């Protein structure tokens, strides 16, 4: 059952003029959250902006005694609500509903985990990487951004022994170009008998490319989709994704309930 709390802002760390990490005191939500799940945040009280916005749980925050005290989100300023969240100050209260949605299915060794992140799509992979590490799964993060200045938390993933494969569109760090290119090469050179699970999150174009690449190489792939979402609980039917049903036809599936993590090969990408 989801929990709604008026969560106190513990910290709001600006990573750049666009990106920030907002830490919220929400022990009950933190305690119940699994990698890949999301929360619905209302950026301000009152009617404008009106609706909550969905955010992947980025980090689980812990107290000195190891108990879960809250969560953080990784957000990028793109509109009215994200602008308000960017400007939030410690002590502010933000309505936080969660945890919501279906989490990632986490693999076990000897299967390797290859995470593919584009921009703010890095968000669900911090907690996933921790869970993979706890299970001893060998992990790689393919991380694409516009430029070096938009790459964050690299040390966090390195500390979890995650191998990093970086791409930037302007070539200022790592390989120049899109993140799916090195994914494709690695999949091409990997032995068919060596199992790997691909996890992808990012802009729609990148997500579709990652999914198609995984499917072409006959590898399982879980994508975390982002849709405009009204409620997060299955009430409004806004956040649908076309998915192939058992009858072979395409059906609109609510990504808040069936997702946000969905099997890439069941989504109709066109």
């Amino acid at each position, binding site marked *: *059952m*989801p929990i*709604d709390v008026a969560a106190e802002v513990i910290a709001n760390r600006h990573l750049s003029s666009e990106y920030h990490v907002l830490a919220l005191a929400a022990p009950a939500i933190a305690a119940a959250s699994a990698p890949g799940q999301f929360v619905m945040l*209302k950026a301000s009280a009152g*009617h*404008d*902006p*009106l*609706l*909550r916005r969905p955010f992947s749980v980025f980090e689980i925050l812990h107290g000195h005694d190891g108990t879960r005290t809250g969560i953080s989100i990784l957000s990028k300023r793109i509109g*009215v609500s994200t602008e308000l969240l960017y400007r939030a100050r410690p002590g502010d209260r933000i*309505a936080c*509903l969660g945890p919501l949605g279906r989490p990632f299915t986490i693999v076990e060794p000897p299967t390797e985990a290859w995470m593919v992140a584009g921009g703010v799509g890095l968000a669900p992979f911090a907690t996933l990487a921790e869970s993979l590490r706890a299970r001893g799964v060998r992990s790689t993060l393919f991380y694409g951004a516009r430029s070096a200045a938009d790459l964050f938390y690299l040390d966090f993933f390195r500390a979890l022994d995650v191998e990093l494969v970086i791409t930037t569109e302007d070539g200022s760090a790592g390989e120049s170009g899109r993140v799916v290119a090195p994914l494709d090469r690695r999949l091409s050179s990997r032995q068919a008998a060596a199992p790997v699970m691909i996890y992808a999150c990012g802009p729609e174009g990148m997500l579709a490319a990652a999914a198609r690449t995984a499917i072409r190489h006959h590898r399982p792939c879980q994508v975390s989709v982002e*849709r*405009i979402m*009204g*409620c997060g*609980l*299955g*009430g*409004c*039917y*806004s*956040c*649908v*994704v*076309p998915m192939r049903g058992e009858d072979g036809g*395409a*059906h*609109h599936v609510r990504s808040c*309930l069936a997702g946000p993590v969905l099997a890439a090969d069941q989504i109709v990408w066109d």
Partner: protein
Amino acid sequence: MDLSVRIGALTLKNPLLAASGCFGYGVEYADVVDLSSLGGVVSKGLFLNGREGHPAPRIVETPAGMLNAIGLQGIGVRRFVDEKLPELRARNATVFVNVCGSTLDEYVEVSRILSDAAGVDALELNISCPNIKEGGIQFGCSLAGTFDVVSAVRKVTRLPVIPKLTPNVTDVASFARAAEDAGADAVSLVNTFLAMVIDVETRRPKISNIVGGLSGPAIRPIAVRMVYECRQTVKIPIIGMGGIADARDALEFMIAGATAVQVGTANFVDPFIWSKLLDGMRDYMKRHNIESISDLIGTIDVRSRDKEWISS
């Protein structure tokens, strides 16, 4: 303190209904809300067969509101009866089913199936969805069409028949009267206002259907006015809705003449809103010495304000 209200032969334990299209089939919210604590749950609109609805994006936020064009995605009435109704019954929900049709015959057939199923308490006739061509709006925008749908369904059911009216007409009250003349037990209003939002950078509409229905606090004053106008025109109960976000908003509709109210968009923002609304209503009744909430219905005081101004 008595919060119960009557819609025809049906007694609701309180005036709060979850609005159609804003609460799934009700079962989605069973973990969050005690469904039996609501006056009723109005299901998502149902045709005879399932529909996939419009592609995303289906909603966009607007100042103090939102625009939607879902396109009446739904599982069809038979799957509703088989898969959803048993759980709603088990949770003691009072169930209003929103009935859709592309033809008069379809309204009749869907209504007949629901009347034969155990656990349906009322039929809300959707003759007002602004977002699909064949969604009944052709009935809801014509006085004769409204009369015809209501009388046809009236003949095949004993359940309360409650047409849901569109605000996208010149005179809503005349449609309430047509519904009353055709034997409706109540009317519900308003459905959403036809509206649109354009992204000026791309010059593209923000939702796939180009136009959609506007809801939320932005429309509330217009909806209150329409309820007030209908109250002057018909005797049957009115179920009012449009932008209710707190108890005062709900009370405003009741004072304007609504017997019960529906809450939609605000449930998206706060799925725990129901107990807050009930607490607010009880608090108001206490402060105003109102023993029964039904005593509040239509009590708007429109006497001349001359004396107030002179004395102040």
